[in-house]
């Protein structure tokens, strides 16, 4: 009898716990899982100019393969991704080391260091648009007073990708630094003491001890940044909208414009599913790497 009561209490408890997570699960399924399935279905549809919808099979995907704009977008996405990620990891590790050695950092200084990535990317785009203006911007004034030639920055098809990478790196390097700093602070101090006794130089200590121990944290930072960088949107949409010409037309910008400016929902769905597959691929690859460098 008491056994049955205990089982009943346990069942009741399990029911209650399910009820607690049910709203979040139902919301996520309704807002994400179901729409993704719908997008997969939309990817097989074609929409005529009159809004008529018909089954198109793999037509959207075969269009993808022969679409020069898609391959260009893929190239822009990858170039921007690699450039930004390298910049942010290198300078992020540098900044983390500086912050690590500056003990007792006042809260106000920490607030200043996180301020770039706490503000909307849209605002970052607005401010850099003014700073990098080719004719009246402060950046070109600084270049010229240093005796360097001015740049067209965002208005130059050659320089727009490095410039956007620079803006994004200004915003997100401190974020990478904070993650790496967390990793540095959790390293066991005993290994350093051993290295010091062995008389290892500061550089050797960093190269042989700190960096290998930090690798899992760095890979984590790389995953978090990859997810955002491969979906690059806000700063480009505000500053260049994919221009000049199509020089900064990332896959996400291209897909958005195909969907909401040309209203080709079917083809846009195929584009976005392809981009999602690329993001997932990058995350899985980095996850394996994280497993390989774990200690």
């Amino acid at each position, binding site marked *: 009898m008491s056994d049955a009561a205990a089982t009943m209490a346990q069942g009741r408890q399990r029911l209650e716990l399910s009820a607690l*997570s049910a709203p979040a699960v139902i919301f996520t399924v309704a*807002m994400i899982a179901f729409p993704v399935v*719908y997008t997969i279905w939309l990817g097989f549809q074609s929409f005529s100019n009159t809004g008529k919808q018909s089954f198109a099979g793999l037509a959207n995907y075969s269009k993808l393969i022969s679409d020069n704009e898609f391959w260009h977008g893929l190239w822009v996405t990858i170039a921007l991704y690699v450039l930004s990620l390298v910049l942010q990891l290198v300078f992020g590790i540098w900044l983390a080391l500086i912050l690590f050695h500056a003990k007792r950092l006042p809260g106000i200084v920490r607030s200043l260091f996180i301020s770039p990535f706490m503000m909307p990317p849209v605002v970052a785009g607005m401010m850099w648009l003014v700073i990098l203006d080719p004719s009246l911007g402060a950046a070109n004034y600084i270049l010229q007073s240093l005796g360097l030639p001015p740049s067209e920055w965002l208005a130059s098809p050659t320089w727009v990708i490095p410039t956007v990478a620079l803006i994004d790196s200004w915003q997100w390097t401190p974020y990478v630094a904070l993650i790496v*700093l967390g990793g540095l602070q959790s390293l066991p101090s005993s290994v350093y003491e051993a290295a010091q006794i062995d008389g290892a130089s500061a550089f050797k200590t960093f190269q042989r001890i700190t960096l290998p121990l930090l690798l899992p944290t760095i890979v984590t930072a790389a995953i978090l940044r990859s997810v955002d960088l491969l979906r690059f949107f806000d700063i480009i949409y505000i500053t260049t909208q994919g221009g000049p010409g199509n020089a900064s037309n990332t896959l*996400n910008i291209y897909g958005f414009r195909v969907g909401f400016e040309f209203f080709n929902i079917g083809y846009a769905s195929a584009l976005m*599913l392809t981009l999602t597959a690329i993001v997932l691929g990058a995350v899985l690859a980095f996850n394996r790497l994280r497993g390989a460098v774990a200690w």
Partner: protein
Amino acid sequence: MMDAPTTDRWIRCLNLLQLVLAGIIIMTPTVWMVLSSFKPSFEVTAYPPTLIFSPTMENYLQLTRTTPFVSYAVNSLIVTIGSTALGLLFGVPAAFAVSWTRISWPAILTLAARMAPGTLFLLPWYVMFRQVGMIGSYTALILSHAVITLPIVIWVLLPSFDSIPRSVFEAAQVDGCSVTRILWRIALPLVASGVAVAAILAFVFSWNYFLFALVLSNGDTKTLIAAAFNFIGEGSTQWGALMAAATLIALPPLILAALVQRWLVSGLTLGAVKG
């Protein structure tokens, strides 16, 4: 060869120098934005750029006069507060249940929104919301932004709930407390500061989010972020007003972030790093 204390002092000096350099690089663009917002209109486009000028509120006044800035700000507040509240309403119980049962798939499921490009959801949302006439409604905007806030709330709160000793819950259970009652009466007061951090982070990222409002809002429900585009269009010759708008849009998240900067790291990485 230098003796150890001297080398030590040199290294510390060099480190401080780098810290200052990094600080300058990080702060200068923001300072320039704020300065420009207070410049008289003839001076903001002056070349060479000026550092010394008599500050004016002209740009801010112009912003409120020539654009519906205040109603955009109200829209932003409605959407941000609404989606933060919704994220807390769904996220707090879910985080508690995940922490209790150690069954983590509901928490991982909500992360899907962090992985896929927003346009992937926006396409079907657009089709669906249009069919039920909800494009431009606050409801559509709040629901879409809750997709951003929910994973933040869950992943910020998970470690907080995990850190409560199991014995606290077991004692309450012996006293005949139901699970739901334990959450509201015992667990929630213990993680109050975690809830505050979660709410602030959710607010910041909902406020900053651009893409959804770009498509799902209309003239009446446009948020500040989605309206940024209008300011640029008008501001091509009016940098002062553009920078005033940028400053005002950045202000709420920056103030909130400064309040919770000490607890931010673990929240920002969604549990990937324990900071």
